[in-house]
């Protein structure tokens, strides 16, 4: 495999006493997609913000083309230029006072592209996201959610990035529009060979978009491996719980209504040991005492009872 564009090595991010990202190691390669899946508070969005340089790591190292960039300086600037980002909410992430042309050209201005080339470049970018023929002088509010997300993607592509970080790129969109945006991302990757990081709470989206999938829980990567392996033969009890919670695709295969009625209590984090041990049906004393390491070759899992089927 070609060397990674971005590498994270045991990156930790703490906000006050809260560890949002806990010793996460990941590698992002050109032309390939890493999907990160997990529920709210699992650290997936903080991981994205660390990668694009919007947050600095508390410990650990981020490398862009081999050069550490987590803190500041020239490497950070180079990394920021080479990493584009697409945000979840196309209604909030585009500045309503800017025209579409200004939104798309903003990265060009910031990174000193000559103003003479600007108009041509904006048109080219809008073409590439299926928005040819629109007036760059129009405002984002004049477009639908799907079109706004296309404008957001055009901006992310402005500086010919090597990597595009997509944080829940379709969660705010209508179902019938989501597929158009996901296909556009697949197509841009095929044409430009960009690496993609796709962050989503939706396992279907992540599986379909990705070569490799990482499952996060409480700031940790608890399982990681080829997309098919992780989603078809999950090894971590949390990954299995996530898959089991996905609704069926027809009334003939209802999966959820016959589940045992689960009670919900006041959330309490595990003080030591495996963070999932407070919810895990397989948890034993060792789980409450010792944090499991992410282990394995191709398909890795952080669990003291990996591969044990739940009773």
């Amino acid at each position, binding site marked *: 495999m070609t060397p990674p564009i971005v590498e994270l090595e045991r990156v930790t991010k703490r906000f006050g006493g809260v560890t949002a990202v806990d010793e996460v190691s990941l590698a992002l390669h050109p032309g390939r997609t890493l999907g990160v899946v997990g529920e709210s508070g699992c650290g997936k969005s903080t991981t994205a913000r660390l990668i694009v340089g919007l947050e600095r790591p508390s410990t650990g190292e981020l490398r862009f083309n081999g050069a550490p960039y987590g803190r500041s300086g020239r490497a950070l600037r180079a990394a920021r230029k080479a990493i584009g980002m697409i945000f979840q909410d196309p209604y909030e992430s585009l500045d309503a006072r800017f025209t579409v042309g200004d939104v798309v050209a903003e990265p060009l201005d910031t990174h000193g592209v000559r103003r003479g080339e600007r108009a041509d470049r904006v048109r080219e970018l809008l073409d590439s996201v299926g928005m040819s023929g629109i007036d760059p002088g129009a405002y984002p509010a004049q477009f*639908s959610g799907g079109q706004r997300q296309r404008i957001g993607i055009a901006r992310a592509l402005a500086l010919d990035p090597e990597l595009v970080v997509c944080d829940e790129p379709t969660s705010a969109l209508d179902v*019938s529009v989501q597929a158009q945006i996901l296909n556009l991302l*697949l197509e841009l990757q095929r044409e430009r060979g960009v690496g993609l990081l796709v962050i989503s709470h939706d396992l279907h989206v992540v599986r379909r978009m990705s070569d490799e999938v990482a499952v996060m829980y409480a700031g940790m990567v608890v399982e990681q491996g080829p997309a098919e392996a992780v989603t078809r033969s999950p090894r971590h009890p949390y990954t299995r719980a996530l898959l089991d919670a*996905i609704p069926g695709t*027809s009334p003939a295969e209802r999966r959820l*209504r*016959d589940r045992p009625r689960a009670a919900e209590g006041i959330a309490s984090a595990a003080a030591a040991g495996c963070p999932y041990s407070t919810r895990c049906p397989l948890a034993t004393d060792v789980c409450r005492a010792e944090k499991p390491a992410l282990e394995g070759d191709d398909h890795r899992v952080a669990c003291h009872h990996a591969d044990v089927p739940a009773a």
Partner: protein
Amino acid sequence: MSALLEVSGVSVRYGDFQAVTEASLAVEEGHTMAIVGESGSGKTSLALAVARLLPPGGEIAAGAVRVDGVDVTGLRGADLRRARGRLVGYLAQDSMAALNPVLPAGLQVAEVFETRDGVRRSESRRQAIELLGQVGIQRAAEVARMYPHELSGGMRQRVMIAMALALRSRLLIADEPTTALDVTVQAEILALAAALQADHGVTFLWITHDMGVVAEVADTVAVMYGGRIVEQGPAGEVFGSPSHPYTQALLETVRGGAEAAPKTPFATIAGAPPAGVIPPGCPFHPRCAHAFEPCPEVVPAIVEVGPAHGAACHLLGAGR
């Protein structure tokens, strides 16, 4: 069996904008009907009309809504207040906004008993804690003293369900109650709703954009697009032989997502749902791969395609 909810020919208007056009449906007691649609489909306006909770400026312009035989469209004042709650309860998507932020959760449930049955505070507190336990809240006495912001989204939704049970509403409108929740929490709330239906015979009108949720909860389904019901029938029928091109496309998004190989393109529907102006004729025609001459001109009537199963599409009309 008789229908607990009967909606006949209901249209909802906000000034010049018609959000719902001539919607008719019926839900049997103890059953769940899902109304599925995207933004602008009219599903929330229809639900708000049934609950008589349309915002100022919105009105039921035509048709009738009967709950347990009572026509709620004409109710006013004290009659309307009594109907809201006893006849129709409402589970909102945004539980943070629906609960009172300055009252402990248990007290909000207890107040229902006080208002409804006139019981004293100590008795209402006891009943509230018991009900919180029934909706799967652990250490209910402790949680009863907590404020909404101290609870997770799933716990708040459980408190909302407890309030609806306290009201003993005949019909419960669930307006995307799990959309903002994590998928593992959604699964628990859906299982809870099914269990409560079995125990208490609750009748649900369940509003959602998610065909997976429909598959899990619905006995019958109404698919809405551009303010109209375009397909309606028993869930098994609608999923088994979807007859409207829009329903077929929506189902393809769910099934494709579950089965296709990684990095292969997704099946798509061109364009976006109508916002503001609803196209003439069949509202779906600008996005439909099968559109032909009559589609932009004539609104298709609902055609029977199976037992209690109808769809509004010119492809199904006579001679096609």
